[in-house]
């Protein structure tokens, strides 16, 4: 299901052609907004901005599935949390929040044998309500999470791992660290493929995974993971030898074959991003209430 998430999409769109450092820079105001902004309208604007970049990047439709599933799941869980626990969790004084409807009143605890006290314990003795504030909280958190997920995914989908590597080492991160991270990313699809093969092999030997039985899930996972890890270690040893024979670890300054070129378009865009970031910070500091910022 998650095949294709966080994987490069081969294309030559205008987003692909941008200098990766500019793309990294663009993440700055977007993520700043995701963290600082709390207004639904503002956040919606940012989400639609990020999604319009997806269209510009010409991401094929099949690649949207995984990200939409994750987005949906997380939003459901945020809403669940916001609806059921906002009231109990934050200990708002009675009357300060707008209760739309009661789902579980503390009085009901007595009529429900085991579940009652348990729910009471979870909610700090206050019960469960659907409150307007809880719904707002769920929406805002979903939007913030989506912005972070969508924008970082877009960065990876439109930038060659090699270029990410280069731009990270340009800002001072050691090559060995970035290389390890990138190799891990490169092998994700291979390892996933192998994981499915091992699961299939187990099912081909009569293992039925009962979806709701923790013991069965545990048994399936431990056997699969052992095999998977042994295979990964074997593969890593070969890769290490292969890298060694190609000079990895030579005591010289590594040179990069590809150069990251800053075109005029890149420079203009970087300037625009910096101006936008400054404006956002000014708005955040001086007009937080008008623009949906509350720090």
């Amino acid at each position: 299901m998650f095949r294709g998430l966080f994987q490069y999409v081969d294309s030559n769109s205008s987003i692909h052609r941008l200098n990766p450092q500019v793309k990294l820079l663009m993440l700055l105001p977007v993520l700043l907004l995701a963290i600082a902004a709390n207004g639904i309208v503002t956040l919606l604007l940012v989400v639609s901005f990020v999604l319009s970049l997806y269209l510009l990047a010409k991401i094929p439709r099949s690649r949207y599935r995984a990200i939409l599933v994750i987005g949906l799941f997380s939003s459901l869980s945020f809403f669940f949390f916001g609806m059921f626990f906002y009231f109990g969790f934050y200990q708002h004084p009675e009357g300060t929040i707008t209760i739309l409807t009661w789902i579980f009143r503390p009085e009901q605890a007595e009529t429900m044998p085991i579940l009652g006290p348990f729910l009471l314990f979870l909610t700090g003795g206050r019960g469960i309500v659907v409150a307007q504030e809880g719904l707002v909280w769920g929406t805002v958190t979903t939007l913030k999470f989506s912005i972070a997920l969508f924008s970082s995914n877009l960065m990876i989908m439109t930038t060659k791992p090699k270029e990410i590597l280069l731009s990270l080492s340009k800002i001072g991160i050691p090559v060995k660290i970035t290389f390890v991270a990138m190799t891990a990313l490169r092998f994700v699809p291979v390892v996933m493929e192998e994981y499915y093969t091992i699961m299939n092999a187990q099912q081909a030997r009569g293992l039925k995974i009962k979806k709701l039985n923790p013991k069965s899930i545990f048994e399936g996972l431990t056997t699969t993971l052992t095999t998977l890890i042994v295979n990964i270690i074997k593969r890593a040893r070969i890769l290490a030898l292969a890298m060694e024979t190609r000079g990895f670890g030579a005591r010289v300054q590594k040179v990069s074959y590809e150069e990251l070129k800053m075109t005029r378009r890149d420079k203009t865009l970087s300037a625009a991003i910096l101006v936008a970031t400054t404006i956002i910070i000014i708005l955040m500091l001086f007009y937080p209430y008008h623009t949906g910022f509350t720090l």
Partner: protein
Amino acid sequence: MASILSTENLYYTHPGATQYALKNINLQVKEGDFTLIAGPTGSGKSTLALCLTGLIPQVIVGDMKGTVLVDGKDTKQYEVYQMAQYIGLVFQNAENQLCALDVEDEIAFGPENLGLPRAEIENRVEKALNAVRLNDLRHKYTFNLSGGEKHKTVIASSLSMLPKILVLDEPLSELDPTGCQEILRTLKILNEEYGITVILIEHKLEHVLGYVKTAALLKDGEIVAHGPTDEVFKKGKLDEEWLDLRVPEALKLSQELVKKGLMSNLTLNTTEFEAQLPLTLAIGTSPKNAINASSLGLQGEKSPPKIPLMRIEGLSYTYLDGTEALEDINLQILPGEFITILGSNGAGKTTLARLMAGQLKPSKGRIVMNGGDIARQGKADLARTAGYTFQNPDNQLFCRTVKDEIAFGPRHLNLSKEETEARVENTLRLMQLEQFRDRDPQTLSRGQKIGLAVASVLSMKPKVLILDEPTLGQDSSRINSLVGMLKTMSKEGLAIVVITHDINFAAEHASRVVIINNGKILLDGEPHMVLSQEEVLHSASLEPPGSVRLGKLLGLPPMLTVNEISKALQNIEEAGG
């Protein structure tokens, strides 16, 4: 010419081992040579490759005695990255050696690490791409390449270090015939046009002998023959044991004929063989004239009609991205059959096998087994009747001991304890794994692992057993012992389906051969009928077994193996005499 690579009294012991892995190796390779190092599995070929390139002793520990000189430099005194500029190494599995995303980056990886000026890197990448003819694919992603192309990329990435010597460890073992030819042609170009000394380690020799100039044979860690290819293979040193190496059939047959006194010289290929014809049999005539059907003993016995175990009806499969993998496949599998499904890489063989095991759902058509469509039977339930082993045994062994591994299946079938126990013992005996009963499966050799993977499925007593490429990286004695065990089972009614691109395997063992190309069945039938149709096989990028040509040259009806030919000749003689 001087030796560019030489070893002196080289001994090596793996850490913890008591026996030598390499014993007294004195190898001299001249500049510009194309050398083959051949030997059965476990003879120390790969260990030798690691020694030649300096990975032993620089990276891999163990006890090494003696010296290895590469272009006059002692491997003990140079670090791997320095040595890499004199000698390059390409490992067996190309996939595991790729560290960058696209072809160009992969090739630039080495020179980048050496910290060369950018212009020099570009120059080297360009040259390496030219040498392996990959210019058109330079921006392609390595995971989208074919097997042969991946190997060429790895070779190019080694070339960009500008080595004088290139060592390749079994580069052909996972490739189909087209891929093999591609790599051998590339190596020939590197050797002849670029003057690179090539050392090729292989045990699959059918295609190789036409390319190499010299050969060294390795057995139990020792070099037992070394010299020009002709000498090594023709001077009668090739006793029975060496036939394990899968030598060309022309060589095998000529050896038989020389033994019988029918031919005077050994021949390495079909052309040489033809030059020795016509053959005069002891009865004073050529086989062509003495032939009659009764003398060949080829009439098959008619067996009573059987009820098919599995019926595949109008099966099609389309991948998510719209590629059609299989189109309108119809097959019936009868009890006791030994079917091989042949095709080049990407023909749709594995897809068909996985559909048969219920791991994929057909886009169209159906597969009927146990009186019902298998799409409606769960994977785990289907496992009782259709057993499946994957290409890579590492992916299907996940228990702590061999015994547990075999018991895994029966245990999930809810059998009684006694029944499980009985099946495990029975399977251990049948697959000759008794002495490994308590070993960790991961410590077994590849051949043993394949045997265990098969055993772990057999213990569920399936009616159809599907094996995906069980012969990869195996020498013939191991393949033969596996097949022997399988044939015992098939006498009891088990139907065996083997997916492979190894045509000699089909020729030797199958009772029925199915050829698949581009997702369609081209031919389906008795092996002699199918495998002698050279043109159809060529259209599926397959090479008919050497014996088909040899048999034709001798004027015999379609023959599939050297044994068949020599038996046929014997029958003719007996009938005539």
